[in-house]
Structures are given as structure tokens and as C-alpha cells.
């Protein structure tokens, strides 16, 4: 009887340990996703500054400016799902990089200390976003592995730990724009 009790206690302890590990990994994914969200917000906060600083000089890039402003407004809506947030962020990356590249065609913009500082900040945030996405993907891989491997797959099944999707990292996000190189040209 005692032996049976000990065996049950061991199985229960192992079960609790596995359950806690799964919860820990799932929370890790959510935490990292929250930091992606925070970084995206930081990026969105810089956009109005950039647009207001360059719009006078960049009359020819009106389409690009409008696209960036429109996507930013879309991204600021409060009712977005995580997937939608990422999809809009990806959509915005291209015109935003286009805008950053376009700045180099305007000597008066290139010379502005304020714009150069803004570009550095944007560049930093772009790289932080890329890093956070890599960290998120790694956390999701660890979580999904734990979900699928035996014996944790049993616990994951009983307590319905849902699988999480990986984020694809678009090429523009992976390759950081070297603003200084651009401004040198």
C-alpha cells in the first residue's frame, strides 16, 4: 500500500513539474510577445515625428507618406489580434524603409541633426523588433517541442495547451538599413 502511495506521489510530482514547465514556457512566449508589442508601439510613436519633419521637403513622396500614416493609424486600433498586429507591422516595414531610403535624396534632410537622430532611433527599434521576433520564435519552438514530446505531450493534451505559430521574419526586417551608409552616398 505504502509503495503504491509512493508511486502515485512520484507520478503526481512529475506531472506537476511538467505542467509547471509548460505553463512557464507558454508565459515566456506571451512575455516576449508583449515586448514585441511594446517595441511596435515605440516605432509607431516615432512615425508622426518623422512624417511631420519630412513632409514639407518630400512633396514627391506623398504616396509613401500617406501609406505610412494610414498603416500607422490601422496599427493603433485597440481591437487587433496578435496575428493582425504582426501582419500590419510587416506591411508597414516596407514603406517605412522606403521612406528612410528616400530621405537620402534630400540634402537638406540629410543635414538635419533632428532627422539623423530620428533615423538612428528608428534603426535601433527595427533591430530590437527583429531581435524580439527571433526571441519569440525560439520561445515558441521550446514551448511547441515540450508540447509534442513524450511524456509532456500527455499533460499538454489533457490541459489543452494550444500550439503557437512561429512568426516569419520578412527579409526587410532581417536586414537592417545602415542609415549612415545611406547618408554617406
Amino acid at each position, binding site marked *: 500500500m505504502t509503495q503504491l502511495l509512493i508511486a502515485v506521489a512520484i507520478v503526481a510530482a512529475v506531472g506537476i513539474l511538467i505542467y509547471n514547465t509548460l505553463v512557464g514556457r507558454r508565459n515566456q512566449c506571451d512575455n*516576449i510577445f508583449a515586448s514585441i508589442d511594446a517595441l511596435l508601439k515605440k516605432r509607431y510613436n516615432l512615425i508622426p515625428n518623422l512624417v511631420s519633419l519630412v513632409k514639407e521637403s518630400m512633396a514627391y513622396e506623398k504616396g509613401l507618406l500617406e501609406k505610412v500614416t494610414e498603416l500607422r493609424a490601422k496599427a493603433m486600433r485597440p481591437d487587433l489580434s496578435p496575428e493582425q498586429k504582426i501582419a500590419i507591422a510587416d506591411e508597414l516595414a516596407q514603406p517605412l524603409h522606403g521612406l528612410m531610403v528616400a530621405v537620402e535624396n534630400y540634402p537638406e534632410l540629410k543635414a538635419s541633426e533632428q532627422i539623423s537622430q530620428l533615423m*538612428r532611433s528608428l534603426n*535601433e527599434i527595427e*533591430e530590437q523588433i527583429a531581435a524580439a521576433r527571433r*526571441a519569440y520564435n525560439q520561445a515558441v519552438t521550446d514551448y511547441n517541442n515540450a508540447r509534442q514530446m513524450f511524456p509532456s505531450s500527455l499533460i499538454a493534451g489533457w490541459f489543452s495547451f494550444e500550439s503557437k505559430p512561429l512568426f516569419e521574419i520578412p527579409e526587410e526586417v532581417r536586414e537592417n538599413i545602415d542609415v*549612415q551608409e545611406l547618408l554617406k552616398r
Partner: protein
Amino acid sequence: MSLSRSALLDYYYDELYPELVELEAERRRILKWAVVVALVVALPALWLAWKTLGNGIEIPFWIAVTAAGIVGFAVNWLMISYRRRFKSRIFSKIVTKIDPSLLYLPAGTIDRSLFVASALFGDRIDRFSGRDLIRGRIGKTPIAFSSVKAEREHRDARGREHRSVIFAGTFIVTEFHKSFSRTTLVVPDLAEKYLGVLGGWLQTLSGKKVVRLDHPGFEREFVVYADDPVEAHYILTPIIMEKILAIKERSGSNIYLSFRFDKLFIAIENGGDRFEPGLFRSLLRFDTFRGYIENLNIILSIVEELNLNRRIWSKE
């Protein structure tokens, strides 16, 4: 490195030659004296050892150890002025020639507090010594490095005191080009390298936060401990991980990196005597010169390799 290797070679053999010849003569003199001392000590030691051989191996063994100790001490004493002259007249000139902004202090060392601040080898260090401090600026990046030896004392079950070396090698303090606020440590991954998956599991038991990165080659060689996984990924981009692997490959030693207090600390476990002149190695030989330049180059090129002068982020 701002000067090409051939320009340095010309400098070494043209401008430093008279000094090198003088030092070479001194080295030969010391070598002769070393042989004399060795003979004077070895002959009576051999005789004594022969006499005591009948009583077991222990006494002859201790005689041999004592004789070797006496010879070692004498050679070291004979080498003091030679080493000093080599460092002040040859090595310091090579360093200044490579980059005039670099300052070489033969007796200087990286501060113990900086070594501790790296958090790479714990904070209990009982003995700390160093030499050959070089500091200056490469482009926008300040750099300082020296040979360092850190030891820890402990007692065994019988109460005898022992000393173990926790690090002996080159310790570098420089600045990273991105801002960060937490701690990220990159250390050789001995557990996973030798124990595989089991090693990876053991790491998680150490209590520190292990961060896995998306570079299998890097993961095989290193383990990363970090307070913030996003910051660790921000610092360790795929390209930086490649470069760290390349630095490890070039140095041929274990390397440790710490990103802490807005600084980058790098420890190369190479024994720490890379800039010492040897008694059995002529300074006129090409490979001797190449050894010094190669060792300096590995350290100074880290700034370039890790792109530390690239300031496109908010850090000026």
C-alpha cells in the same frame, strides 16, 4: 590594425634591428649561464639521488623537484632585466607603431574590480595579478586589455590549503556599440559539447536563466545566460554570433564574453604569457615576431570584427 604586416616587419627588422641584436646577445649570455647553473645544480643532485636510491624512490624524487626548482628560480632571476628591456625597448615600440594612440604599461593590469564586474568568474577571487596593460582607442571605441591571472583558495577535507587558477589569459574591456541595461553572459558550453542533450538539461538546473539562440553552431560552442532574452537576441545578432565563433577559432582558446554595465568584457583563456620573450626563442627569428603581431592582432581586430565602430544606433 592600421599598419600592414609587411610594414611592421620592415620596422621590426630595420629600425629595431640594433636593439634586437643587443638583446639577442643578452639572451645567449643568459642561456649560457642557465646551462652553467643547471650543471652545477644537476651534478650534485644526481650524486645525492644515486646515493639515496636504495631507500626508495621518494627521496630522489624530492631531490629532483628541488633541483628543478632552484634552476627555474635562477633562470627567472636572470631573465628579469632581459624581459624588462624587451618590453620597454621592443614591444612598446611595436604597440605604438601599430597605433600611436595605444599606451603600453608593462607592469599595468586591468583593474580587479572590472574583472569582478564582468560576472564571468564569480566574485570570490583570492589572488589577482596582471601585466602588459595596453589601452587606447580604436576609432570611436575605447579598449583596454592585459594579461590576467585570477586564483581562488580552498581547503580540502584534511584542512590543507589549495589554490586553483580560475582564469589565466587576456582580459579585454571595451564598449559595445548598442545600448543595453541588463546582463548577458556568453561562456563556453562544455556541458552540451560533451554530454549533448543531457548537458543542455543540466544547464537549466544551474539556476541561471539560459537563453537559447537561433544559431546551431554557436549553440554547440557556447551557452548564453541572460536576464532578458530579447536583449540577448538584440546583442547577439546572427552576424555577431558568426564573428564570435570566428574570434574563438582564430584565438584557438576558450573565450568568454560579458555584456554588462554598458561594457563588453572579453576573456581569452590563452595562459596569459603571449607577450613574454622566451629564453629558447631568438628575437631575430621571423616566427617570434609573427607570434607577437598575431596575438596583438587577434585582440585589436575584435573591434573591427564585431563592428564596434559602427554607430548607427542611438549610442554616439
